[in-house]
């Protein structure tokens, strides 16, 4: 009897332990006992890396610290930002001008840091606008956008802005092929009329100023992602393409028929030579180049009317197609510049091409036909090896500088670590969930800092506290300093981080500006001191030269404004002290407030529509008497005789 009683107890005990075991694993928690100390950045101390993450549909760039995953700043790039007045202030509105007019948003995908000798140099960050084809340049001393340039003859600037080895060029390629030049044709005439373009934007070595150098017209595939060569492959860039079927409807099926699509290998050095020799054709093309002058705190739009276009038929040797399995997505060049890794969205292997084999194949004319005159190289002649069993849906690869590559696999939701040369998979780790890009600091450069890999995931679901149907996007930090990848941290991100890049903090930290020098402020409406504060009427335009300093505006009482006036508030922050911005906000403003940094001038237009008294005030808590930092504007009827007064 006794024995039986105990047996009865065994069953519930087993059940209970099974439940407990299951609970402990349900969050895939694993052992994080030492993870906390690895990502802990003590109060008052700094992170080891800056990470720049694209905002995707937010159109912006966010700046994070690694390993802490702390958010520092959201840089306004393609989208208006009413917090600061970006895209609303008179000085920054030109940044969003395009040949389609004012486009105050975009879809920003790939932040790419400038490089010298293939290594990050900490000068600029570039990012593409996918929707209305653009590339932006961000100054890494101010962390502000200083240039946006539109790409003509393009639709969907996805394969961009990957830089060449010395940032000679930033590249751009069309995700959507369209008629070049644009024209009204039946969509069904795709095969006949639609073309792609691959563009090279020259970057001035000193100023960073971008100018469209030349465009290569290519067959109407969908061009996807790019990377430029380094070392031996310095002269080349590589662009993946899909839809070599040239389908114009239901691409998910019709563009997935061919066994292999292509990587376009472009010899930009040769293209540059052809362009210089006058082999290109000047084509009328309307686009905008917008530059923000940090001395004048003011952007100017330049309308451009021409693009230099190269036709591969007339420029032999500038482009070759490398067959690559199943709708390739990412294309990544290893630190040595020899291996070109492709990620086939639907492929079961990762093909790795060899640059030296490619050159030999070109020399020996090992071609398997051509597309519109562009030679197709033989796959076997170029491929160096295939990584077997690399996970399902391999997308992107980064490198750790120690002979290993890390590939993201979207469908199997994992990072796969494999060895260059032997192509064997040595480790794999799950990501939560459905990883897109991945990033190792410097992982696409000649000098990666192979300490961490960040997974940029597409699906978040249950990883955080739920916030209704829309949940945050998510990044995950892994330690890759050992043989095995170890998950350290999940952290939420702004918008959708497609790609990201990271750089050691000490390369940027020392150059980060604290203030703008007031003496060097060349804005035409700048004030150098509060004695210069002024209100001026010119017809129905009123210019208020407004100074801000702790804790008052000058002037702070303004009378004589009339309904129907166009009032320009030119706000100068006279402070020269670190971290003392002032805000400017007026009741009922239909555009935005302003956030003005020390030594900076910004202008916002106000159209008063009703008589009365309107308060304005500082929106950035600047000092103990911040609440006192306010003023009044008296608005009289349009026909009134109220005198213009200010003090």
């Amino acid at each position, binding site marked *: 009897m006794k024995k039986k009683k105990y047996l009865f107890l065994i069953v519930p005990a087993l059940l209970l332990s099974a439940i407990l075991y299951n609970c402990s694993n349900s969050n895939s928690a694993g052992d994080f006992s030492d993870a906390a100390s690895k990502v802990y950045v003590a109060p008052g101390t700094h992170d080891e890396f800056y990470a720049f993450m694209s905002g995707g549909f937010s159109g912006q760039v966010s700046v994070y610290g690694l390993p802490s995953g702390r958010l520092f700043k959201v840089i306004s790039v393609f989208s208006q930002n009413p917090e600061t007045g970006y895209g609303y202030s008179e000085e920054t509105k030109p940044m969003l001008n395009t040949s389609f007019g004012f486009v105050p948003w975009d879809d920003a995908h790939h932040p790419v840091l400038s490089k010298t000798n293939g290594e990050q140099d900490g000068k600029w960050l570039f990012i593409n606008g996918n929707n209305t084809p653009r590339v932006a340049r961000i100054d890494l001393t101010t962390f502000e956008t200083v240039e946006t340039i539109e790409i003509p003859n393009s639709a969907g600037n996805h394969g961009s802005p990957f830089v060449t080895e010395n940032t000679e060029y930033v590249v751009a390629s069309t995700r959507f092929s369209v008629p070049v030049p644009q024209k009204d044709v039946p969509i069904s005439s795709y095969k006949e009329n639609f073309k792609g373009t691959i563009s090279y934007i020259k970057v001035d070595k000193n100023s960073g100023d971008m100018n469209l150098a030349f465009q290569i017209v290519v067959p109407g595939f969908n061009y996807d992602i790019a990377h430029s060569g380094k070392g031996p492959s310095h002269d080349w860039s590589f662009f993946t393409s899909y839809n070599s079927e040239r389908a114009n409807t239901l691409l998910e099926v019709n563009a997935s028929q061919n066994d292999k699509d292509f990587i376009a290998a472009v010899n930009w050095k040769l293209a540059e030579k052809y362009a210089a020799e006058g082999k290109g054709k000047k084509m009328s093309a309307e686009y905008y180049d917008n530059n923000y002058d940090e001395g004048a705190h003011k952007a100017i739009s330049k309308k451009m009317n021409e693009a230099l276009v190269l036709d591969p038929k007339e420029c032999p040797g500038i482009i070759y197609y490398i067959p690559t399995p199943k709708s390739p997505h990412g294309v990544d060049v290893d630190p040595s510049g020899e291996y070109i890794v492709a990620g086939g969205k639907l492929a079961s292997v990762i093909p790795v091409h060899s640059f030296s084999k490619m050159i030999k194949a070109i020399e020996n004319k090992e071609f398997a036909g051509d597309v519109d005159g562009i030679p197709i190289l033989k796959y076997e002649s170029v491929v160096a090896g295939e990584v077997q069993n690399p996970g399902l849906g391999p997308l992107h690869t980064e490198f750790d500088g120690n002979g290993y590559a890390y590939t993201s696999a979207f469908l199997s939701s994992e990072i796969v670590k494999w060895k260059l040369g032997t192509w064997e998979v040595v480790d794999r780790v799950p990501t939560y969930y459905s990883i897109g890009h991945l990033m190792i600091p410097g992982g696409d450069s000649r000098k990666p800092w192979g300490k961490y890999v960040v997974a940029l995931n597409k699906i978040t679901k249950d990883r955080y506290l739920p916030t209704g149907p829309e949940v945050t996007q998510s990044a995950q930090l892994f330690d890759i300093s050992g043989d095995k990848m170890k998950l350290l941290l999940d952290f939420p991100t702004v918008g959708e981080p497609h790609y990201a890049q990271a750089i050691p903090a000490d390369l940027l930290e020392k150059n980060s500006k604290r*203030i703008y020098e007031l003496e060097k402020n060349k804005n035409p409406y700048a004030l150098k001191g509060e004695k210069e504060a002024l209100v001026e009427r010119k017809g129905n335009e009123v210019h208020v030269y407004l100074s801000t*300093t*702790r*804790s008052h505006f000058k002037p702070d009482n303004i009378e004589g404004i009339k309904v129907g006036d166009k009032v320009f508030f030119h706000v100068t922050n006279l*402070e*020269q*002290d*670190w971290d003392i911005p002032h805000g400017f906000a007026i009741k009922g403003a239909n555009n935005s407030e302003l956030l003005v940094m020390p030594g900076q001038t910004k202008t916002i237009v106000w159209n008063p529509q009703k008589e009365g008294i309107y308060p304005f005030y500082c929106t950035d808590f600047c000092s*103990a*008497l911040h609440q006192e930092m306010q003023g009044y504007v008296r608005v009289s009827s349009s026909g009134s005789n109220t005198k213009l007064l200010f003090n």
Partner: protein
Amino acid sequence: MSTKSRILVLISAVMLLGVFFFPIWKIDLVAPQYPEGIGLRIWVNQITGYKKFDLRNINGLNHYIGMKTIEPESIPELKIMPYIIAGFILLGLMAAALKNRKIVAAWILLFFIALGIGFYDYYMWEYDYGHNLDPKAAIRVPGLTYQPPLLGSKQLLNMNAQSFPDIGTYIIVLSIMSAVIALYIDKKSSKAIT
């Protein structure tokens, strides 16, 4: 006067040239909001910030307590002091050239008198800035004045004012010490001879 002494007096005089290249006094303000530091450097001929815009920023902060703006251009002492130092250099050179013990002694005495006057004058400026406050200032704490210490530190609201000599003063001290030693050695050697 012995050669050794003459050389020391010469060093005393020449060393004073350094006073033109380094501040003589520093006032640092230590506050939680200023991890990067903020302070003033007082030179024989000017007042500057520890960092480029510190003087401007300190004046900005001082307006809350109603302190007068510190305007180096309007402080006459900053125009006179360089001539006084130059005078001491010349007098020292003269003493070395004339091998005159009495001039050296007078030089030391005069220097002490000048320093005494200097400190008194400096104290009076500090007193004026600290006490002569705008009665309409935003922050008025009954009984609290804002005179920084002549030497040492003092808490003034959220700021800890730390006032200490800077390199220029150390040069002056070394210069005087060198002159005193010169006189002492010379006395000894002349005694040994007699």
